[in-house]
């Protein structure tokens, strides 16, 4: 009877699993070897300890199953009478200890290497925000934000009906603006966060480090091959934790130098934009895009928020009230809530646009505009007046 039951269970399982096995494209089953010396060593440690575990498992389960088949009452086995042996107890304490020491030595060696930040050739500060990354090239004076690509962001909304297969393997692993770094250089990453704890992970580089608000962590990578390397935030950071990818473009040095020049030109062009007068229509059009990328996650498409969790924009006292309160809320955030300080995330144009948009959408009909140059002078004033904001931009979101 026992085997009857087992047979039926196996048949049931096969019926459930085999069709999906047949259709499956298995993809990767194992850790990536990566593209740095460290990542290959980590992979080596992973495989070594995996094989050790397999051998231990095979031995233990082998003895156990031999016993299960041989020493059963139905086979006429009579129980033996032994129940202790100091010798074997000592043996199976010492032998695992030796294996562990053999494993601990190479592991410690790799760990020491991973924690050696000396002689880095360039530094990039990576700041985690809910839910995007900010990259600041400390030697180049370049700074920008990187967040989930708008097309992916639209597709991942509830019941979007989007065909996810168009994105292939990179669904949720594509950003609007990737981190660009040169190959062959020891890059030091400085990790911090503006609101809650995040964690910056790129498997191919074997780097994962928590970004703690108010503190700076170090990390490094020396990428050997040009390519696009993708990762994600790995520390739960709120509603959209699953939607803050990391994309690193590793390029040859010349290409990187050219990219740096382009970035500088672009930043100069952007700076000019905030000096001219913008029309209300322009601001609203730009603001709708900014809203979609930054506000929609919590305040929702219709501006109604989620009752009890995220306040509505439509008819909000703050939005329909005094403009300075509205500006202050967007710039400085609200303490102890997911509403973070957008003053450090958005440029003057986007700030002015999204505030104008909120005041003139979802049935809010104030008709006024906030101009980019107003934001610019306001922020300059804030920078001078507040000592807590100026240094690292990191404490304002959590105070």
């Amino acid at each position, binding site marked *: 009877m026992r085997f009857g039951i087992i047979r039926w269970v196996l048949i049931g399982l096969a019926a459930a699993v085999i069709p999906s096995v047949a259709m499956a494209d298995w*993809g990767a089953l194992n850790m990536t070897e990566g593209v740095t010396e460290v990542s290959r060593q980590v992979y080596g440690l992973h495989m070594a300890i995996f094989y050790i575990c397999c051998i231990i498992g095979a031995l233990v389960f082998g003895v156990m199953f031999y016993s299960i088949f041989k*020493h059963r009452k139905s086979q006429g086995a009579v129980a033996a009478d032994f129940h202790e042996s100091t010798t074997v107890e000592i043996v199976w304490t010492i032998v695992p200890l030796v294996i562990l020491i053999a494993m601990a030595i190479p*592991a410690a060696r*790799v760990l020491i290497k991973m924690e050696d930040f000396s002689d880095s050739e360039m530094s990039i500060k990576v700041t985690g925000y809910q839910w995007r990354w900010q990259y600041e090239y400390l030697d180049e004076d370049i700074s920008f934000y990187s967040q989930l690509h708008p097309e992916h962001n639209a597709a991942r909304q*509830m019941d979007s009906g989007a065909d996810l297969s168009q994105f292939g393997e990179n669904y949720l692993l594509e950003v609007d603006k990737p981190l660009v770094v040169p190959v062959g250089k020891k890059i030091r990453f400085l*990790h911090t966060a503006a609101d809650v704890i995040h964690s910056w992970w790129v498997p191919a580089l074997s780097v994962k480090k928590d970004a703690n608000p108010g503190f700076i962590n170090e990390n490094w990578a020396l990428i050997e091959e040009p390519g696009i390397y993708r990762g994600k935030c790995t520390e739960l950071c709120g509603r959209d934790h699953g939607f803050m990818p990391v994309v690193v473009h590793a390029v040859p040095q010349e290409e990187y130098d050219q990219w740096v020049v382009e970035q500088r030109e672009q930043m100069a062009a952007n700076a000019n934009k905030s000096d001219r007068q913008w029309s209300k229509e322009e601001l609203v059009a730009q603001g709708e895009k900014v809203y979609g990328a930054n506000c929609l996650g919590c305040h929702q498409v219709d501006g109604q928020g989620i009752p009890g969790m995220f306040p509505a924009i439509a008819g909000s006292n703050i939005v329909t009230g005094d403009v300075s309160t509205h500006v202050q809320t967007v710039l400085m955030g609200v303490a102890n809530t997911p509403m973070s300080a957008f003053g450090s995330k958005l440029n003057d144009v986007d700030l002015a646009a999204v505030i104008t948009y909120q005041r003139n959408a979802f049935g809010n009909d104030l008709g006024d505009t906030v101009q980019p140059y107003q934001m610019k002078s306001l922020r300059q004033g804030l920078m001078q007046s507040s000592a807590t904001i100026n240094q690292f931009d990191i404490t304002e979101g959590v105070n």
Partner: protein
Amino acid sequence: MSYSDAGHDAHHGDHDHHGPAPGLMRWVTTTNHKDIGTLYLWFSLIMFFIGGGMALIIRAELWSPGISVVDPMFFNSMTTMHAIVMIFGVVMPAFVGLANWMIPMMLGAPDMALPRLNNWSFWIMPFAFTIMLSTLFMDSGGPAGGWTMYPPLVLQMGDSFAFVIFAIHFLGISSVMGSINIVATIFNMRAPGMTLMQMPMFVWTWLITAFLLIATIPVFAGAVTMLLTDRFFETSFFSAAGGGDPVMYQHIFWFFGHPEVYILILPAFGIISHILPTFSRKQLFGYDSMVYATASIAFLSFIVWAHHMFTTGMPLAGELFFMFSTMMISVPTGVKVFNWVSTMWRGSMTFETPMLFAIGFVIMFTIGGLSGLMLAITPADIQYHDTYFVVAHFHYVLVPGAIYSIMAATYFWIPKWTGNMYDEKLGKLHFWISTIFVNVLFFPMHFVGLAGMPRRIPDYSLQFADWNMIATIGAFGFGFSQLMFVYIIFKCIKGGEKATGEVWEGARGLEWTVDSPAPYHTFEESPTITPSTITR
């Protein structure tokens, strides 16, 4: 559960004995260790289905890429609540329930040392969990920052946060009181002549577990109180802006949290150390080393906490220390597994349901233990950390580990509790179906984790789709097959083949010397300890 009070009273002649009080008030006012054990076990079973329902919501969302079932915020609430319910509402109460039922009988004691405290420690729990679960229906929603409740994220929660902290405090009070009771019972209520090194392994493992609880729950209470004051009273324990440090919370939490994971597994070790010898018809191999191994694990559990924090930016010396100490834990754990296998070796084994669950435990707990050894290798852990590989690891030690031990214990002792044998054929079917589905559910998580899927995400890239779909099939299969467990329990309570006092052929220990079902009051006169009533 019915107790044959008439026969019992007659048996004890003219003593003024009380059976259970009539009606529902029996359960509210009871100070009887068996009643309270029963209450704990029912509570745990109900919470198992609540926590399991949450797991199925999680798995339903992860059935395919894209957000299609719940909002990501609610998804986070589900992962958080699933963990809180399963840890504090299922595994811990089940072990306390088993302790209540079995420890006095194993020691030859008439009841727990502190019976009224016992009643109180149980009755706090349903209220605490009502408060906890009610936050899901409040405007600001249930806790969604993970069961570890890391600040600053958890401080973004709305006002229902206060209810969460309040509920945790009460659960903690309940656990500490229960633990004090267990320690007091073990030290004071043993039958005359029973030395500590003659105690059954379940008693030993629970004694050590109780000390872990008493030592760590107050630490946890302190940590969540600091969260409470940070959130509502303007303190800055964990906020850099006020001179605090969010990582300090993680150190305090895991100083509790790591012993906590051993709290969830040590009593399981005890249960398995009863079942394997019984059905091998052979004494437990290496009793002394089992006791010492359990104590070493408990000691080591206090000095490994930061292995949950290798990516937080600890100094190198800290990382090395915690890597070595963590690797050390595999030595005493290995000793236990080797001892179990040696217990089976050259025994005369039969494979009733408790034995199947116990063997399932040893195999799958070992798989979880081996992936734990992999996680101890710090450089590799930096890749594994916060991925599904970790999810696979701790579910292997908790589901086919802790939960299997509780099911094994139920099948093992339910004839003693009800006086009836359970349906053996259904029990075995329950084991095989559960075992297949639990592996379909959790094994693929190793693969997606290694391939780069982080944990606690409601949506994922397409290359993880197939394995996630398989895991979801396993989840629903495993979840619904537990209805069999409930059916078997009810069937056993209602009737079945009458159990003898000894129940199992190879059974040893005082609990098997009393009738089945165990009378409402047992061992009012201390039993005499003989070699055959000692389990070692």
